[in-house]
């Protein structure tokens, strides 16, 4: 890594990236990004801001109603990547590995890991929720802000075969084909948020795209996506099932409709439902009891905890676990935090986090701390030695 070991033609372009000015510009842009992102939360909500400002390469702006956009700021991913390259390039061109600089080297390694950890978390971590009523057993968690179209083959009496089409695929439109299905699914229209009304209440509403199921009796009005943290979109879509014989009809599916709609093809019975996207696990949890302690004589919460039974036939696990506010359950790469409760303290809400990069920030902070300790200690000892001389 020392200057002398790298040939000059490699160093030239590296020096551009190693510039301290670039560091300052990046940090400045970062501050501006955080400031503007915070302001934008008012109109966009925290989830959209995270995606547009921080988990993106560029931040775009477009005037109201226009269908073009221009980049106005580097996004979080771009800034993080440039800072990462900048730091590594600086080490390659300017820093020399010596015993004296070992502290700074460790410190920078920590910062590099921190940046990498954040990038990996942004790309790979997933947060979902598990809602368990007293006595209920669930083997899946749900994404609170993402839907899926589930096409369920219910023919077999002992199991269901589910084809899950995520929201992103529905939003793209077009026709969906899956080798396990003897038909195609055409997305006639996708509405990220909509209001559903009975046709009887809006008799002069235009005729529905839907030809079968609940759809023909329901009027669907598109709404802008919600930006509020405590609200949820009611996502709807019109989908057409096409078999070998031709169209079987167009259905309206929506996560506002809790009931499944059924049809059959080739002696197989299928059910359609739009619901919060599910993530099945290799294990299941049963809520034995949810405890909500209050300070004596008041309504002030003291502690929330869920006693659950962990069932994993693959690994032979069948044991009770207590999940409380600062004591999550960690199992098979998932972390279950106590996040909320409902229904008169008979339902628990667990936040389910899967983050493969979970350990990186801890390692990074350890390295930064160690680096600082080494660097300051060397200075201190040097100073003391000088004084004693």
């Amino acid at each position: 890594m020392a200057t002398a070991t790298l040939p000059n033609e490699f160093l030239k372009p590296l020096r551009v990236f190693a510039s301290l000015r670039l560091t300052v510009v990046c940090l400045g842009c970062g501050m501006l990004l955080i400031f503007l992102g915070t302001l934008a939360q008012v109109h966009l909500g925290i989830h959209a801001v995270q995606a547009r400002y921080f988990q993106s390469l560029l931040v775009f702006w477009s005037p109201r109603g226009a269908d073009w956009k221009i980049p106005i700021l580097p996004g979080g991913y771009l800034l993080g990547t440039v800072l990462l390259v900048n730091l590594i390039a600086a080490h390659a061109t300017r820093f020399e590995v010596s015993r004296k600089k070992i502290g700074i080297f460790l410190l920078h390694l920590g910062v590099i890991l921190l940046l990498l950890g954040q990038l990996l978390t942004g790309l790979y971590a997933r947060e979902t929720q598990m809602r368990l009523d007293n006595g209920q057993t669930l083997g899946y968690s749900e994404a609170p802000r993402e839907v899926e179209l589930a096409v369920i083959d219910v023919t077999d009496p002992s199991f269901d075969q589910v084809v899950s089409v995520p929201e992103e695929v529905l939003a793209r439109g077009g026709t969906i084909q899956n080798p396990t299905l003897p038909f195609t699914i055409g997305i006639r229209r996708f509405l990220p948020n909509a209001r559903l009304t009975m046709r009887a209440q809006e008799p002069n509403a235009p005729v529905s795209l839907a030809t079968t199921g609940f759809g023909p009796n329901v009027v669907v009005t598109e709404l802008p996506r919600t930006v509020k943290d405590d609200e949820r979109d009611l996502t709807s879509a019109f989908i057409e099932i096409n078999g070998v014989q031709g169209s079987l009809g167009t259905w309206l599916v929506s996560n506002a409709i809790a009931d499944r709609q059924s049809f059959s093809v080739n002696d197989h019975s299928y059910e359609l439902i739009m619901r919060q996207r599910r993530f099945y696990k290799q294990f299941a949890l049963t809520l034995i009891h949810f405890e909500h302690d209050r300070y004596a004589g008041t309504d002030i919460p003291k502690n929330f905890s869920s006693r659950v039974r962990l069932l994993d036939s693959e690994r032979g696990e069948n044991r009770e676990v207590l999940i409380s506010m600062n004591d999550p359950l960690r199992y098979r790469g998932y972390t279950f935090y106590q996040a909320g409760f409902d229904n008169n303290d008979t339902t628990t809400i667990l936040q389910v986090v899967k983050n493969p990069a979970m350990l990186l920030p801890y390692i990074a902070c350890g390295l930064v701390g160690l680096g600082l300790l080494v660097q300051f200690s060397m200075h201190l000892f040097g100073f003391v030695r000088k004084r004693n001389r």
Partner: protein
Amino acid sequence: MFASCGPSDDSKITVYRIPKETAPAATPPLNTAAGAGPALEWSAPAGWETQPASGFRKGSFLVKGADGKTADISIISFPEQAGGLLGNVNRWRDQLKLAPITNEAEAGTPISVAGRDMFFVDLVSAQPVTPDGAKSRILGGIFPLPGETWFFKMMGPDQLVEAQRDAFKQFLGSVRPAESVAPATADNAGNTNAPTPPPIAPAAGAALQYTLPNGWQEKPLSTMRRASFNAPDPNGNSADISVVSLPGTAGGELANVNRWRDQVKLGPIDEQALARSAEHLQANGHDYLMVDLVSAGPIGDPPEKQRIVAAILNENDHAWFIKMTGPDAAVDAQRSAFTDFLRSLKIP
């Protein structure tokens, strides 16, 4: 390590097999974004202590027995069917350690509340389910309304809850649509959120007098409409005309105009902009505020330019909304007929 949950699987269709599920009692964790159902009010019997409503609770009460034991009364509403009657009764049965039932007819007894069906539920545990060794009882009222379902529930020691049965039934009987909130906008019938029958408020009042313009057809009156017409044009399109009256200001002129603007996908305006853009029509001694709204482009299904021409009148503590909606061409053709109609209309 990362491959198992990488970002790429966001956009992938997955196929999996799962054991058969029993019907879940779905309880959505968040409010829906698309408006709420009707608001309700009730009267609490004597002796019930009001508790602060929290979380999902719309209301909360406490009843104390002679022995110091307490029963808890909660009022909760969830969007849509919230898991259905059977699902929720089974959830309550589970709380009392009772086996689930499968016959919906056994789930609850229908009782009439505010002219609609409510399902009365009475459950008692077979054994003690609380540490104090007493049996527990749940009295409940499940009230499906357009767009949401309300749950009235009393839970506590068997003896105490049993003693409160009459009070609880009287409480259920007192449930009614909230007068202050229900008619917030002119046609809130269209504002509810779910495929369910029309809401509670029926149209009332004397018949209206008017001269029917040429080509207009009278339509049957619905829940909110004092008069209702259809004006077809030769191209197969038609304009829908409605006359609605509501007590009070029904949300005010601006709120209603902005709601209509939203229906034709126009952005909201403020009081000044409304004053600038709206015209007034003097007819039969009334001063109507007139608005004419056209969508910027084709909307709806099939996509077409949509238009709303409407007149608002506030008189004698009532708000009147006379509104014509439909495809732009059909509405445009009926503009002068609409004005003639207003001139002929006698507001009682």
